[in-house]
């Protein structure tokens, strides 16, 4: 037996937030050999910042959270390649070009790809999603300015759709925004908030169509999109770019024949282990056998990717633990309106029968909050806040302590996180809350 066992080789496919977090935490705790493979870019960049590159707020280099020397210094090997096949039995990967790579443990952190629902014309030139760096380059070709792209149509009213609308808007490109729901993102947001965002979108001169579906995308003689047709009205909207932003799906096509159990995503247990020993899945591509609490089985957000990366690193370094996320939180920005959420506030459609809402909106139509309460116990369930920043740690504490909504409203000032000198609205919220309680 050799004196030194060869170092265990951990291979991570995907250099997004989940894969990179896993690598960093494994490195913190061990000197295992770590290789990160990605087909997308040489270095980790922040996908959430793609919009800012197109809008000219930042350059690509600014979106890299670590300087390029970081990887070498921490002895994390980077490999730019596409993995075509995973062979769990052989412990081997087949890379594009036929090269192989052996691993001892494999972390799948392969992220998502944009949804396409089989619309006629969805693969034409000028039709694209917005997920990868390549998509951004594509967009730069399809919509560099309002001469080349005289109008863009965006299909799908979610977080990426509204970001794409803001992006195109920044270059003076007229945007038609097709949203299937009757109000923007109202599968997630309660109606008061969703309607405020509708108005805000229109204020930015976006041509917002609610309650409509895409029927087909029409081609010109060169195989390039020239118009879309709306299913409900048959209306034809001429355009040079069609943005498909109707959600994302795990990016798992290359695993079809690997024997790894797949559903919508890569099936994992609470330890983020797949059915194959030594293979884990984290981030956007992982699908829990059973949803955790109110969470979805596939959680395609930045934060959960980061959390899963932290967890899997523990497991790989010999401390096998479960993915056990704390209280739900999230955030987004709709043009100029910031949104944060802590705990659970459901939309009108998804709201459980016991969930009561208190809604307050500022007359300037850019700030509002919704607080969810358990009807029977008065327990605070969650808050959505728009245009007012709130403290994560305070709400996390209140949720853990199972505070009542009465308590939360009384102490709302302690949770305010707006910059100094900002006007605060606690008194208005409190009096609105009190008059509402009296009325009921």
């Amino acid at each position, binding site marked *: 037996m050799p004196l030194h066992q060869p170092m265990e080789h951990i291979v991570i496919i995907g250099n997004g937030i989940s894969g990179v977090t896993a690598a960093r935490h494994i490195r913190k705790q061990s000197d295992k050999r770590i290789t990160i493979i990605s087909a997308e870019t040489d270095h980790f960049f922040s996908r959430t910042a793609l919009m800012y590159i197109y*809008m000219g707020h930042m350059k690509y280099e600014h979106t890299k959270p670590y300087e390029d020397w970081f990887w070498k210094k921490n002895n994390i090997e980077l490999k730019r390649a596409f993995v075509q096949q995973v062979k769990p039995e052989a412990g081997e990967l087949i890379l594009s070009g036929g090269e192989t790579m052996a691993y001892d443990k494999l972390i799948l952190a392969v992220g998502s790809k944009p949804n396409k629902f089989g619309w006629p014309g969805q693969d034409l030139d000028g039709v694209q999603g917005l997920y990868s760096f390549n998509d951004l380059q594509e967009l730069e*070709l399809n919509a560099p300015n309002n001469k080349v792209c005289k109008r863009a149509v965006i299909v799908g009213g979610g977080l990426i759709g509204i970001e794409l609308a803001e992006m195109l808007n*920044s270059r003076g490109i007229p945007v038609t925004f097709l949203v299937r729901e009757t109000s923007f993102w109202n599968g997630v947001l309660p109606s008061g908030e969703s309607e405020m965002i509708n108005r805000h979108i229109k204020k930015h001169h976006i041509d917002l169509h609610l309650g409509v579906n895409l029927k087909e995308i029409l081609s010109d003689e060169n195989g390039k999109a020239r118009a879309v047709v709306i299913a409900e009205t048959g209306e034809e909207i001429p355009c040079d770019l069609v943005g498909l932003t109707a959600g994302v799906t795990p990016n798992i096509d290359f695993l079809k024949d690997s024997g790894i159990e797949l559903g919508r995503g890569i099936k994992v247990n609470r330890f983020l282990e797949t059915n194959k020993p030594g293979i884990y899945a984290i981030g956007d591509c992982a699908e829990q056998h059973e949803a955790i609490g109110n969470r979805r089985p596939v959680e395609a957000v*930045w934060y959960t990717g980061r959390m899963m990366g932290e967890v899997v690193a523990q497991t790989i370094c010999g401390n096998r633990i479960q993915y056990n996320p*704390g209280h739900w939180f999230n955030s987004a920005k709709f043009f100029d309106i910031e949104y944060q959420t802590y705990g659970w506030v459901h939309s009108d459609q998804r709201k459980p029968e016991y969930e009561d809402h208190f809604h307050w909106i500022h007359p300037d139509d850019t700030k509002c909050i919704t607080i969810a309460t358990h009807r029977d116990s008065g327990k605070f369930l969650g808050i959505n806040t728009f245009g007012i920043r709130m403290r*994560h740690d305070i709400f996390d504490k209140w949720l853990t302590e199972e505070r009542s909504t009465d308590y939360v409203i009384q102490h709302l000032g302690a949770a305010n996180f707006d910059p100094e000198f900002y006007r605060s609205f606690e008194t208005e919220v409190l009096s609105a809350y009190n008059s509402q309680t009296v009325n009921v």
Partner: protein
Amino acid sequence: MDRIERSMSLTGEPPKALNTIQKIATLWGMTGLAILVLAALNTSFPNKGLWLVLSLVSIVGGIVLFAKGAYAGKPEGIKNHGVWFKSVSGRGFWAWVAGISLTGFYVILYFYAELLGLNPGGENRGVIALFDPLSLLLSGNPASQWFVYGTLYTIAIIAFGIKFIWKYRHNRYERIRTFSVMFFQTAFAFLIPEFMARLNESEAYNLPYYDLKSVWPLNYYLFDGYSLDGLLSSGNLGLYMLIFGVASIFIITPILTYKYGKRWYCSWVCGCGALAETAGDSFRQLSDKSMFAWKVERWVVHSVLVFAVVMTTALVSTYLGNDPGAHWLTRDIFLVGVGVFLTLPFAAIWYFKRDSLKKDAKLGAIAYLVIILALLGIHFGSGNDNIFLFEASNLRQWYGFLIGAVFSGVIGTGFYPIFGSRVWCRFGCPMAAIMGIQQRLFSRFRITTNGGQCISCGNCSTYCEMGIDVRAYAQKGENIVRASCVGCGICSAVCPRGVLKLENGPLDGRIDANQVLLGNDVDLMALVNKK
């Protein structure tokens, strides 16, 4: 990447394009500048006062109208569209033109003022003569190159300040802060010294130019012989001003920095900061965020501080030595006092805070202390008339040339469009260095990170004029407690997820990175934090 870079080179499209109002505004502002250039080329204007007013009104009007074109009628919010596409703010052609012109202007201003028409013996000519009417009105004296510069400087802060307020009108912190710098520049740096010059018409006063808000060691000329003579020969007023100057250093600054961080000065009061925050706002994203730059910063800025301390000690002790017995404070007492005064805080920091200091910070501190003490020792040992190894006046001249003129002016401001707006404040300002040490160690100020909400987008780091990699802390859930932070508040403003808040709070847990909340359940966090 090449594809992106290529299509970005298309000109004249939104968000790069100027609208009609902005084009008119540019023309108007340029007309104002053209009058100044013509004057500098010795075009003789018949009615100087009128032309001066016309020129200044055009410059201010042009800038304000430009802001109106850019921001009026648009929804409130962050206005950074196209920053990196625009030639002037993206280090393109116009940035170099602007940088070279500004640098040229500073070289002429500091070293060839006669080219601007300065004529101390007789009547001014050129552009300085154009400013004579205003100077006569305010102080009763003809203009100097410094009066011309001061006027343009103040005008720039007011005009670009209005633009800044328009741009950040949704942000009350930025609005109030900008009013503050506009006020302090106009009143303290510009008007009050001119009125003080009026006092000098009376025999009883002999006041030097003194911008009361400018604190030593930024105001390194406070302890020049002429300045001390002037203050001490101007009755009670002069004495009070000197006492105020000393109190600003030893009492006011430490207290305010403890309570609010160095931002109370750097981004609320200081004139250099005022220009950087207003005229320099378009260039804040150009600062270097690399770890390497941070290292350079720490060495350079602390070296300047040492230089300033040595130079001032030399000046004052020469001053005291020139006239032994004139003051209760003798040269030797003074020097021993300086030695003791420097050693005490170093010892205290070393003893109480050694854990929170990084290794090279410790080394640097010790090295500097040793150098200063060695110099003091050499002086006492050698007993010649020179202070330390050099003649004090030589030191003073070199400091004025290298630090006062080349660093803070030519490089610090001239290179705004290339290196960003705070090069001087970050790498050069000794005042910022002192307050920075205090801010890191004994201050209530910090930028709080909001739990796990950071998406690592990089807006905060990109728009940090001091080159702090804010994201590096925010994405780990750590508070930002950095010596160089001037508290401009822009990271907090541009953060799309509401992650950052500047605030003053208790010292406990200010830097503590443990127990940060990133979203996972608490047990795991305990493990992750166990390094």
